[in-house]
């Protein structure tokens, strides 16, 4: 897939590296600060272009018309919004993703037809909340139009699923475990045989209404049984 990343800050650069490491994507970063462009060029040659990613002429030069996805990750929400809108309106880019710096803008972006919003604040909250004893699902990403979202959680020590294979877990309707990251940091797409351990980080896709059932299924302690 051809992915255009608007904004060559830390987020954009890391994202480009990760996508390139996948080996399946063509990636271009558009950055308007010439110094940053030079810096990125030393690290990732031929992957960066100088320009304002909100400008149609720049996006055209970047080959936006054949891009599968445009990901706007600058530090300014208004720039991310406009970049996604120009990509959609003028170049029919099938999927636009915007980083949201102010979580209040989530509602606006989705109303204005940005496909996916990613909130840095939510990601930071995820890290903070993982340190807290309360067991919450961390909303990581909302998938526009589907009513689905990606959530993260950590399997607590007293969870009913510790030591259990994925296939034995009764997940609610419209929920699926997409990724399991073990304590060794190894991420894997689980099969039915994957055993869950305490401390595993789980990314799951779920419908908003079934969030609570999902939390219950993965994080609640075992049901007490009468013998």
């Amino acid at each position, binding site marked *: 897939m051809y992915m255009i990343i608007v904004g060559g800050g830390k987020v954009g650069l890391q994202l480009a590296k990760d996508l390139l490491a996948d080996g399946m994507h063509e990636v271009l970063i558009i950055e308007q600060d010439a110094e940053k462009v030079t810096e990125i060029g030393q690290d990732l040659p031929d992957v960066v272009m100088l320009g304002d990613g*909100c*400008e149609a002429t720049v996006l055209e030069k970047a080959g936006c018309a054949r891009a599968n996805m445009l990901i706007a990750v600058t530090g300014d929400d*208004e720039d991310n919004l*406009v970049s996604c*809108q*120009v990509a959609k309106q*003028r170049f029919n880019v099938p999927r636009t993703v915007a980083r949201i710096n102010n979580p*209040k803008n989530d509602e606006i972006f989705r109303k204005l037809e940005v496909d996916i919003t990613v909130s840095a604040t939510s990601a930071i909250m995820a890290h903070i909340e993982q340190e807290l004893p309360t067991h919450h699902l961390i909303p990581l990403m909302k998938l526009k139009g589907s009513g689905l979202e990606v959530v993260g959680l950590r399997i607590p020590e007293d969870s009913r699923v510790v030591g259990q294979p994925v296939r034995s877990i009764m997940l609610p309707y419209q929920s699926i475990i997409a990724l399991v990251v073990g304590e060794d940091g190894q991420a894997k797409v689980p099969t039915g045989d994957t055993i869950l351990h305490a401390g595993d980080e789980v990314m799951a896709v779920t419908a908003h209404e079934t969030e609570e059932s999902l939390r219950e299924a993965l994080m609640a302690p075992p049901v007490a049984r009468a013998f």
Partner: protein
Amino acid sequence: MKKVVIMGCGRVGAALAADMDADGHQVLVLDTDPAAFRFLPEGFRGTTVVGNGIDLDVLRRLGIEGMDVFVSATRGDNRNVMAAQIAKHIFGVPVVASRVFDPIREEMYRNMGLRTINPTRVQARRLKKIIEAPDDDAANVIAHEFLAQDGA
């Protein structure tokens, strides 16, 4: 009498605020920089608010839902069109207008249903006419014609 919000108190925003105030409308001017309000004329009867027009809470606090007109005229095109879309699509303000310097973006957002103006092309054409005038006096005459056309 209309309730009008003008975001961006630069020279254009301030001049528009003064005109709307003189026409008897209830005007509120919004700018992130309190020093910007110096552009408003003495005797301006409207309200000034320091705040960012792309912040939902700021807009709610100033009562955006009951407003008749929202104008964004800051220096930033993206800020202007984002604020205008919030006013129109989130808060349902009936008349929403923006200045957009980039002609391509201006056309795009006009096609998307915003009221927009693009000063860039007109100004470039006018500057060209002035430099093409045979001498300074002739250039001055043309400049006055422009002012007369604008009713200034």
